[in-house]
């Protein structure tokens, strides 16, 4: 399995994500935003502040050369994981529904965060147990997930809500912390599994997410 971590001007979790994948033995490379993506099985959009979050978070990143054909790739079934800013970019690309707004309390929140794993039937979560509580850090000012009532019904009906906050930190609709697209090959989430992937850093719950991806490709 080959993975590419897209690096935008302003990305700051690219190295964390790269190291986790690399430590798991994945053939991973950085892809500069101005280069084309070629021949990877997993595209990872890392956290950070791409293009300074100008206009709206993720609004400018969607024009990056690396993302030119991303919606076509998604349609073909390519796995895409967007963490934090990566989630914001995926909503701006319309690859995922909804939008990320300013946190309800207007604060930038940087803390540990308990999440409930709601759907384990995805390429990203097959190593978790349904209902399991995991601890991934969050670090965002705009993580307040919004979707209208009709959209929410659809997310629920299609089992697209993958992670919910145990104690909603930011005002997200329905405690949503992470969702997939309808097909399930795109996951966007505000919490950072790549920052909870080494016991030396306090927690390795996030490792399961990356091991799930490996397991998905082994079985495929």
């Amino acid at each position, binding site marked *: 399995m080959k993975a590419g971590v897209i690096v935008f001007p302003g990305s700051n979790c690219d190295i964390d994500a790269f190291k986790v994948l690399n430590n798991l033995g994945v053939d991973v490379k950085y892809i500069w935003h101005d280069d084309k993506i070629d021949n990877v099985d997993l595209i990872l959009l890392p956290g950070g502040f791409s293009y300074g979050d100008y*206009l*709206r978070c993720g*609004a400018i990143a969607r024009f990056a050369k690396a993302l030119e054909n991303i919606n076509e790739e998604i349609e073909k079934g390519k796995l895409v994981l967007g963490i934090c800013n990566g989630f914001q970019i995926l*909503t*701006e690309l319309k690859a995922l529904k*909804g*939008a990320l*707004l*300013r*946190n*309800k*309390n*207007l604060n930038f929140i940087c803390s540990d965060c308990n999440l409930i794993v709601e759907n384990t039937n995805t390429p990203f979560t097959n190593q978790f147990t349904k209902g399991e509580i995991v601890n991934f850090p969050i670090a965002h000012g705009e993580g307040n997930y*919004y*979707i*209208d009532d009709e959209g929410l019904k659809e997310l629920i009906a299609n089992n697209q809500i993958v992670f919910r906050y145990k104690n909603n930190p930011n*005002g997200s609709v329905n405690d949503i912390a992470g969702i997939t697209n309808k097909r399930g090959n795109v996951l966007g989430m505000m919490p950072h599994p790549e920052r909870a992937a080494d016991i030396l850093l306090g927690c390795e719950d996030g490792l399961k997410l990356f091991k799930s991806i490996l397991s998905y490709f082994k079985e495929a």
Partner: protein
Amino acid sequence: MIKAYIDVTLKKSILDPQGTAVKKGLEKLGLYSEDVRIGKHIEVVLNENNVDAAREKIDEMCRKLLVNQEVEIYTVRFEVI
């Protein structure tokens, strides 16, 4: 040339915590209001003399980039310069 003044705000149905915080700030000063909403102001200059044509271009810009219509609405005012 035509200058477009674009105001972007969150939809009415969406909570605007910044507006709420500012409303409370105003109240500390004894200045009471029914509602405060905070948004973005964008000015775009077009090499164009016809307001209808300008409106069409600005609408396209708003739809494709300037406004996230999932959560935002916009109003535009034009000035011939």
